[in-house]
C-alpha cells in the first residue's frame, strides 16, 4: 500500500479517499478514478477539461444520435451499481420518448445509505464533473429535459461540491440551453433529502422528490413510462452514471475488455472493504476481482482475528463464508451463492462477533427504516428484532428459530411492495443457514451464557 495515503485510523475528521495513487490509475483501465488527485481535493472544471473532460459529451452531441448512445450502453452491458445490477442500456431503451410524449427527467440516485457503502460519496466529493457529464449523456439519450441529483441530507460536502460544479458547468456552456452549440438543452438541480433509507428505492425516491412521504409506488408503470410528475423518468445510481462518459468515448468493446476473463460482466468497479480490517478503503478494480484480493488490499483482519463471514455488498446482501473469497465478485456469481453483489463493498465479520448480535443490529436497521406500507415488513421485522434480542440474551424459546425462518420467508421477493423486505430477509436467511447452531445456542440458556464461546471458524 502506498505511503502517501494516510491510514484512516490515524485521523478523526473524516475524509473520503481512494487507496490507489495517481501512479496506479490509468485512463484506459480506471475510467472512474484516473482523474482523482492524490491530495483528495475536488477536480474542478479547468482540471477536468485538461484531463479530457466533457470530450464524451462533445462527441455525442456532435454525432447527434441518442439511439446510438443507448445501443452502445446496451452492448457494453453496464449493470446498475445501485445494487440490483439491471442493464442501464436496457433500461434506457424502455424509456418512453418521441411523438407527443413530453420530455421527462434524469434522476441520479445519490441517497447512498446502504450500511457498509461509501463509494458514491467519493465520486461526488472529488469528481463532480464526471457525474454531470454522465447525466448530460443520459439526458440526451433519454430525451430528459431536466436532471435531479437526489442527495442524502447528510452529504453536506458533496452538496457543496456538486452545486459549485454545476455552476461552473453552466457558466462554461455544458449545462443550460443549447449545450456546446448542439441545440440540446438540459440543466441539473441538487435535491437534498432529510433522512430515511427507503428514499433510495427508486419509486419512493420519486415520491420524495415530489415532496411526498417516501412510500414506494407499485410497478408497473415503471418510472421510464411514468415517473416524476407522470413524465418518463430514468433513475440511475451515481456510479452507474459515472461509467457512461468513458463507455461512449471508448466503446462497448473496450468496456467489456476491462474485466478480462474474470467474468462475463464488463467494466471496472469501485470495490471497498470495511469492518475490523487494518486498512479499510476503496479501490477501482476490474469487475470480477475476488473477495480475497480486496481483503488483502484491506490488510486482512485487525489484531490477528480470523474471518468468520462477510457481506459482499451491504446489509441487504447475503452472508458468505471464507471459502467464497476466491469467487469473482460479480452479479451472477454472487447470485448463484445465495447472495447478491449489491454495492460491491465488503463488510467483514471477525470470529469473535456473535452472528446473533450482528443480525440483531442489522434487523434493527431494517425494522426502523421500514416505510410501514406492508405487513410482513412493518410488523414482521420488529418481531424478528424481539426474537433476536431474546436469543442474544440466551432467553429464546423452542420454536423461535423456526419462527425466524417463517418471518424471513414472509419477507421474500414478490411478497411485499418493494425490495426493502427481501433485503432484510436475505442476510437473516443466510445467517440462519450458515450459523444455525449459533442461534440454537440462544435457546433456554441462563442469562448471559449464550455467546461466551464464539464458534470457531470453519465449524459451520
Amino acid at each position: 500500500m502506498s505511503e502517501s495515503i494516510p491510514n484512516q485510523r490515524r485521523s478523526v475528521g473524516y475524509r473520503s479517499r481512494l487507496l490507489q495513487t495517481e501512479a496506479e490509475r490509468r485512463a484506459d483501465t480506471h475510467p472512474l478514478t484516473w482523474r482523482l488527485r492524490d491530495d483528495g481535493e475536488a477536480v474542478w472544471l479547468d482540471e477536468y477539461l485538461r484531463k479530457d473532460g466533457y470530450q464524451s459529451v462533445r462527441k455525442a452531441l456532435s454525432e447527434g444520435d441518442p439511439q446510438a448512445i443507448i445501443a452502445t450502453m446496451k452492448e457494453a452491458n453496464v449493470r446498475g451499481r445501485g445494487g440490483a445490477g439491471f442493464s442501464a442500456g436496457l433500461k434506457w431503451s424502455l424509456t418512453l420518448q418521441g411523438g407527443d410524449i413530453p420530455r421527462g427527467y434524469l434522476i441520479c440516485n445519490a441517497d447512498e445509505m446502504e450500511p457498509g457503502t461509501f463509494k458514491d460519496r467519493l465520486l461526488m466529493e472529488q469528481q463532480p464533473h464526471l457525474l454531470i457529464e454522465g447525466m448530460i449523456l443520459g439526458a440526451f439519450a433519454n430525451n430528459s429535459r431536466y436532471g435531479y441529483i437526489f442527495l442524502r441530507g447528510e452529504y453536506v460536502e458533496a452538496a457543496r461540491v456538486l452545486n459549485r460544479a454545476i455552476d461552473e458547468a453552466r457558466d462554461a456552456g455544458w449545462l443550460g440551453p443549447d449545450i456546446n452549440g448542439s441545440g440540446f438543452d438540459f440543466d441539473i438541480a441538487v435535491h437534498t433529502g432529510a433522512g430515511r433509507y427507503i428514499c433510495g428505492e427508486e419509486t419512493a425516491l420519486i415520491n420524495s422528490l415530489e415532496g411526498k412521504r417516501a412510500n414506494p409506488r407499485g410497478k408497473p408503470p415503471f418510472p421510464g413510462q411514468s415517473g416524476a410528475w407522470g413524465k418518463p423518468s430514468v433513475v440511475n445510481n451515481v456510479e452507474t452514471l459515472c461509467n457512461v462518459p468513458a463507455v461512449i468515448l471508448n466503446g462497448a468493446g473496450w468496456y467489456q475488455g476491462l474485466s478480462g476473463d474474470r467474468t462475463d460482466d464488463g467494466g471496472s468497479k469501485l470495490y471497498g472493504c470495511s469492518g475490523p480490517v487494518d486498512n479499510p478503503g476503496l479501490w477501482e478494480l476490474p469487475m470480477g476481482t475476488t473477495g480475497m484480493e480486496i481483503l488483502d488490499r484491506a490488510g486482512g483482519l485487525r489484531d490477528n482475528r480470523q474471518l468468520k463471514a462477510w457481506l459482499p455488498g451491504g446489509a441487504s446482501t447475503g452472508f458468505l463464508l471464507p471459502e467464497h473469497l476466491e469467487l469473482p465478485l460479480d452479479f451472477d456469481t454472487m447470485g448463484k451463492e445465495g447472495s447478491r453483489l449489491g454495492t460491491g463493498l465488503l463488510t467483514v465479520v471477525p470470529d469473535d462477533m456473535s452472528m446473533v448480535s450482528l443480525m440483531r443490529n442489522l434487523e434493527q436497521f431494517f425494522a426502523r427504516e421500514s416505510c410501514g406500507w406492508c405487513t410482513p415488513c412493518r410488523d414482521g421485522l420488529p418481531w424478528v428484532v424481539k426474537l433476536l434480542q431474546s436469543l442474544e440474551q440466551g432467553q429464546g424459546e423452542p420454536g423461535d428459530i423456526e419462527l425466524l425462518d417463517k418471518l424471513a420467508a414472509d419477507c421474500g421477493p414478490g411478497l411485499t411492495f418493494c425490495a426493502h423486505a427481501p433485503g432484510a430477509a436475505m442476510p437473516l436467511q443466510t445467517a440462519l443457514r450458515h450459523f444455525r447452531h449459533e442461534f440454537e445456542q440462544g435457546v433456554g440458556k441462563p442469562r448471559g451464557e449464550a455467546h461466551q464461546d464464539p464458534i470457531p471458524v470453519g465449524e459451520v
Partner: protein
Amino acid sequence: MAEPVATSQIIGSDGFELHPADETAILRELEHYEQPQAACIEALKIVQRRHGWVPDEAIPAVARVLGIGPGAVEGVATFYSLIFRQPVGRHVILVCDSSSCFLTGFDELKQALVDQLGIDYGETTNDSRFTLLPVCCLGACDGAPALMIDDDTYGPVTADDLPGLLEGYP
C-alpha cells in the same frame, strides 16, 4: 450563515410567520420543480435552519407559501428523520449505529456519549447544548465508528477522542 432574528420578528400576532428571507429562499426553490409541493422538504429544512426545529405553527405557514394543504406538509414533516419536531440542542450529534460501525466499536462509543453527555437518544442536555440521535450508515464506513456533529463528519472516533471533539461545539 443566517442572521439571528429577534423573536418579535418571527412570531406575528396571528401566530407563526416565516422570516422574509426564508420565504424568499423557499420561493426560489420552487423554480426547480414542476409542482410547488416538491419544495416542501427543502422549505421545512429552511425553517429548521433558522429555528433549530420545526414547530407545529410553522406547518400552515409553509403550506401557505407553497400553496398546498397543511395536511400534505404535516405528512412530510412527520416522515423524515432529519426534520425535528421538538426543540433540539444547539448542536445535534448523529451517531451511526449501522453494521460497519457496530463491528468496530459502536457500543463503546455510544456508551461514552451517554456517559459524557448524560443523555440518551432523543434527549437534549440540560444546558441545551447537545441532542443525541442515531443515524443510518453515514457512508463513512472506512472511518468507522463514525458520527456527525451538525454538518461535520468524524471517524474513526474513540471514546478518548470525544472530550476534545465536543469542545469544538460550545
